[in-house]
């Protein structure tokens, strides 16, 4: 039972980490605090559901469509909804406040549309539901596959950010947007690109999660909260921090749900979050800055 709980926790934590990576990219590079982030996770879950149940495309193949589609969708959201805010913001602080308000509105629009379409019920679908034995634990194959994809896509994302010219440019914008302009980086383009890439990560998370968890139209907020907690806990803008923080939360929640009470998972999340903030306010891997 322990190895089962541990493995579930790692899978869940991997999802948290993946989803948080996208949020930290949107916040770190584009300076958009995206409160509608979790809604885009859930939209992808529902798209995966429709693909699987109505169109007959399995979620893994569906990723081939959903990743580019969500990239484009988030690109459009940035251009239409956020570019005017960027243009009028006199400084980063102003953009953060404006973007919180704008994406808060977006949250309700997306949630409203989902509600009209799908209602308030919980959804799930059968995909790779056969049991697999690893390390003495019996686990549904879909969890194993979801974890595998999270690892590969998360690693790919990390490599894009650290090993490619565009990825390095995105990190440069996060560190110092003015200096970025001095090395020929188009900061507006980079912000839009980072927002779209972060949105694509949200969608990947939504698809993978839908393979093994039930979901509903109102669950977006939970993902936004968890992603925010993971980002802050790991140290804002820190990919490795997001990974470790995501895994800690996932494993802790899973152990508590297995051995104590499933109703306590949210409480545990906040206790860990508060402990980290009390001991190290800038997050596990964050450096204290001005």
């Amino acid at each position, binding site marked *: 039972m322990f190895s089962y709980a541990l493995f579930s926790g790692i899978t869940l934590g991997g999802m948290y980490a993946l989803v948080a990576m996208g949020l930290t990219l949107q916040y770190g590079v584009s300076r958009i605090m995206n409160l509608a982030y979790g809604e885009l996770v859930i939209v992808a879950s529902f798209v995966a559901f429709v693909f699987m149940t109505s169109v007959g495309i399995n979620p893994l193949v569906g990723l081939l469509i959903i990743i580019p589609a969500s990239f484009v969708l988030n690109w459009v959201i940035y251009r239409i909804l956020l570019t005017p805010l960027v243009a009028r913001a006199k400084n980063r602080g102003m953009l953060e406040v404006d973007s919180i308000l704008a994406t808060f509105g977006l949250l309700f629009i997306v949630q409203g549309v989902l509600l009209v379409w799908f209602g308030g019920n919980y959804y799930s679908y059968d995909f790779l539901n056969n049991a697999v034995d690893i390390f003495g634990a019996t686990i549904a194959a879909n969890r194993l596959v979801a974890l595998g994809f999270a690892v590969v896509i998360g690693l790919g994302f990390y490599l894009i950010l650290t090993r490619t*010219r565009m990825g*390095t*440019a995105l*990190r*440069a914008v996060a*560190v*110092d947007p*003015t*200096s*970025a*302009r*001095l*090395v*020929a*980086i*188009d*900061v507006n383009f980079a912000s839009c690109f980072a927002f779209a890439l972060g949105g694509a990560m949200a969608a990947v998370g939504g698809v993978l999660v839908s393979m093994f968890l039930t979901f509903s139209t109102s669950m977006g907020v939970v993902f936004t909260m968890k992603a925010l907690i993971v980002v802050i806990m790991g140290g804002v803008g820190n990919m490795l921090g997001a990974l470790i923080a995501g895994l800690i939360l996932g494993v802790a929640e899973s152990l508590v749900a297995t051995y104590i009470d499933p109703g306590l998972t949210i409480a545990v999340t906040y206790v860990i979050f508060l402990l980290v903030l009390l001991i190290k306010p800038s997050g596990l891997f964050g450096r204290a800055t001005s």
Partner: protein
Amino acid sequence: MLDIKNLSVSYGKHAALREVDLTVDRGEIVVMLGANGAGKSSLLKACAGLITPHDGTHIDLSGNELTALSAHKIVETGLALVPEGRGIFGELTVRENLALGAFAKRARAAEKQNLDRVIDLFPKLAERLDQAARTMSGGEQQMVAIGRALMSNPDILLLDEPSLGLSPIMTGELFKALAAIRKTGVGVLLVEQNAHQSLAISDRGYLIENGAITGQDTAKALQSDPAVQKAFLGLGAA
């Protein structure tokens, strides 16, 4: 060549630069001397596209009107600015800082040669390539900043008080590097308060006061100009 004509800049109602004319040719070092608040940084920022000058200002670089371009496009025309306070990416490694210097399309083909050139110029950076830039000494950070600017393959290099906070020895090394950069055909516009050392390596100089050019001459002539000696060289007729 960089040709600045009629450059005026204001912050709100406050005029920081008034109708400034200035030129920098390839292969020369031009120094601009002026007290704090004279408008030196504003001039460099206007060239680099970080601030918008008044209508009627013309800044020409090899046939490009820079006032019509945004900062990232200006780099592509062959102008690189090493800003006040260096502006390096502290969280990134030295190697990444230098690689970002070559982000400009004009610089990509020659990235490898330019990196070798920068390492030749600043051998100290060779062993520090994988270190986070913020962990280096002030002088080394200035080398990274200049190296990054050179990676963009500029025709004109602008430097805003590069010697600020450096030891005299470090400053000497830095200015020697600038003289070497001039040899490669790059035109250098150097803003300094350190008149003594900067005039020694420069070809020409401008004096700027309260946003206006008050004098210009060869560096040699400026070195022996009594007004310059009084204002900048601490050799006043005391």
